[in-house]
């Protein structure tokens, strides 16, 4: 059973989408994504001097006419895409509740997965959580494998703290092919915690997109005025506050600054960045917002 937002209309519109990459990918089969290898696609890539035995069809007669030299045209190879979806499954993703944050984040991941699967490309889901073994699916291909993705994300509950770089590192050890990496997390961690993670992803030559997932209650906490003792859902740390309107405004400014910094780091690193507030309509976000930033075409 598909989650509720995945209506038949939404699914049919997802099937029209295609993930966009800014890097060349190393697919194993013919597909629709550029590969650094030379192949037989229609997209011109380069020239090479003629060597006996080259296919005469690819001779560039224009250059010969002009220079009496023989050059053959080289074309890009188009291959299938390998997409890696990393979903943060730490304790903070369960705030305010599973249904309010983690499930919408998973739904975004499933939307991506469906797009990839619809294009007969490969998708693999990774859940980032402190665990003995990395939680990940095998590569799925074909639309019918969306069920496997759903089962996978449904089987795990977010919990515990998360160090992004080490967690990603465990999963990236098994990455053999460059492709598209989409990281879904709330990024409620210091820069020094998430930046190494992003750098790690870059080091694996992945085309990275970052979706920051936040709940409305994190953006605008509905705390009652007065004395509060707030408990961190990951570390269990407790801090006291006298919650006032002023403090709420300061928090929102700090949130804005933090998000801005993340966006800036992503931009500097050439990473797509988007923010998803979980009370938004999934279809609107996936069909309008994400294409607008160039994630889909």
């Amino acid at each position, binding site marked *: 059973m598909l989650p509720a937002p995945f209506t038949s209309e939404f699914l049919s519109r997802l099937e029209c989408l295609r993930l966009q990459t800014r890097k060349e990918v190393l697919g194993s089969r013919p597909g629709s994504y550029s590969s650094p290898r030379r192949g037989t696609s229609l997209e011109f890539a380069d020239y090479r001097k003629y060597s006996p035995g080259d296919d005469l069809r690819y001779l560039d007669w224009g250059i010969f006419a002009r220079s009496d030299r023989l050059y053959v045209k080289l074309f890009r190879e188009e291959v299938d895409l390998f997409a890696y979806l990393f979903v943060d499954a730490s304790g903070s993703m369960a705030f305010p509740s599973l249904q309010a944050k983690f499930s919408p984040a998973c739904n975004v991941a499933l939307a991506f997965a469906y797009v990839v699967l619809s294009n007969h490309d490969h998708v693999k889901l990774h859940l980032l959580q402190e665990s003995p073994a990395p939680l990940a699916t095998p590569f799925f291909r074909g639309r019918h494998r969306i069920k496997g993705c759903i089962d996978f994300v449904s089987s795990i509950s977010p919990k515990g703290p998360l160090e992004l770089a080490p967690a990603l590192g465990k999963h990236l050890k098994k990455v053999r092919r460059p492709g598209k990496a989409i990281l879904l997390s709330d990024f409620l961690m210091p820069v020094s915690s998430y930046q190494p993670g992003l750098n790690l992803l870059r080091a694996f030559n992945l085309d990275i997109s970052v979706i920051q997932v936040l709940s409305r209650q994190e953006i605008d906490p509905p705390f009652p005025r*007065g004395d509060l003792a707030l408990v961190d859902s*990951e570390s269990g740390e407790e801090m006291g506050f006298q919650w006032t309107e002023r403090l709420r405004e300061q928090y929102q400014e700090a949130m804005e600054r933090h998000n801005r910094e993340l966006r800036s780091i992503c931009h500097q690193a050439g990473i797509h960045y988007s923010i998803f507030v979980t009370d938004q309509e999934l279809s609107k976000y996936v069909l309008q917002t994400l294409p607008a930033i160039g994630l889909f075409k």
Partner: protein
Amino acid sequence: MEFLNPAALSALYFLPLLLVPYLIKGRTRRLRFSSLLLLRDLSKPSVGRRWGTLRLPPIFFLQFLLLLLLILALGEPVFSVRPTNIAIVLDNSASMQVLEHQESGEKSRFEIAKEKARDLLRSVPTEAKIDLYLISPRFEQFGGKTLGPGEAVPLIAALEPFDLGEPSLDYGKELSRLVEEKGYERVYFLTDHPVRNQGETIKTTFVGRPQKNLAITSFHISRTSFALSHSEARVEVTNFSSEQERIKVLLKGGEKVLSSRTVTVAPRKSVTLSFDRFPAHPYYEAELEGRDALALDNRRFAVSPVSKRLEILGVSPRPKALYSLRSLPGVSLNVISPKAYEESRDEGHSLEIFHYASPALLPKKHALFILPPEKNPLVAIHRALFQPIISDWREPHPLTRYVNFTLFQPPYARSLEPLSFGEAIVQSPEGTLVVALERQGRRYLILGFDPFPYLGRKNLPVSIFTLNILEWFYRQLGGASKGTGEPLDLSALQGGVLVTPKDEKFPVAEGARLFTRTFFQGIYQVNQGGEKNLTTVNFAVNLQDLKESDLMHPVPIDLKEAAEASDSRSFLFSLWPYLLLLSLLLLVLEWFFNPPVTRSSTDGLAAGVRLARPE
């Protein structure tokens, strides 16, 4: 402004409880949050108080005002135009002489009432019209005219309480009548009785508190026998307190203590003492040694019997049988017919003998009824008996003393049955033959047989019985004693000067009948004749109302709400409906500014912010 229900204002003490929900609200709440990353730098540690910081939003003051108005409305505030047509009713009965302990010393209740009346007069407008009323000896206006506040004050200051009991009045009815007839805007009633059902128009002020009291409730001087000259004093002492009391009773004559006796009286009980063999004096005083709350009832006065003889009025259609009584020393007899009795007003006798006769109403003197007719006020007459045997008699009893009833056999008798109450003294198997009763200090004896003529030794049992009867009546005869407020009968006196216990002198005109100003307890003396042949007639006047002496349980007065004077405007402007309306408006305002929390926000709060369990 005043409050008709001031008890409701005690709810104001609970107003601070409104802070409690805000204190509870201000408690530190433990909530889970996704990450404290962005809050770390903003943290202003709370002081960790159990109850948090008290923050009072503007809505608190609105709620406070709302509650305050509601409580004030419950107190029924009225804005009273100061009344100008006022009556002040002062209780001037004997119990108002009771001394009350105050900070400034001891004061009588009447003094306290007067002070309060003066305070009242100071608070009324100068153009107010004041009518003063006293309740004793009767409920009537004092001074005879309407006064201004300035005139009323000295008049009240000169007032004194009387030694009188209170008249039997329905105060609620009387005061309501005053309001209706005179149109008073306010009636102030100052009394030492607790009052129920105060209203807007009639305001009562209660002066005094319950106190224990001992009183002499009866004092009687009589001759021990009509044949002898010795006197006997009987004093009854009553303890109105809830504890046993030991008290010394003094018998005084001529300002000297003639005898004394110490007695212990149980709570709410009476004890009667007798004194005898004391010298003769014109009048006597019984006094309790020591002081208690009410000094008035610690003394009582009595005069010696005027006559040494037993003066009898015989009423009989057969007077001959009665004449035999004249043979007895100390007996004076006058016999008239029943018809003459109806018309006569002979007051010179102390005993009436109705021999085969009976008045329509109970006589106001001691009376002996001998075989009365069936229509008599005391007994029902039953079957005739011939030579009845005496089977039972009350013993010991002064009437049956020394009588050998085995030899007592009247030839003819009728059995008797008391109509209301009476004591059977002598009985035969067929019924009661002698009934005795006492009513309001008077003794009545009814014989179902005729003991006359008096035959002396010839019929010793009957003669002894007859002498016992005369003795029994004679012992009850004392000096004339009246209650305060009762008029003195001066018709037997020919002029003179009456001197009251307060040393007021009133000339007694010839032919004068009654002196009514017996407001004070004591000896009233009528001096007749000149210096050389001065004769004095003494009258003892005592407080007769026991209710005035019972200071522990004053009888409450029930006032009914007086109708407003028909032509007066409503001088009490009730504020409570307006306060209630204002409260309702504030309630609407409070709902408007502090609406109930909507479902979505509560869901968000409930779903998004889970209370962390205490570790």
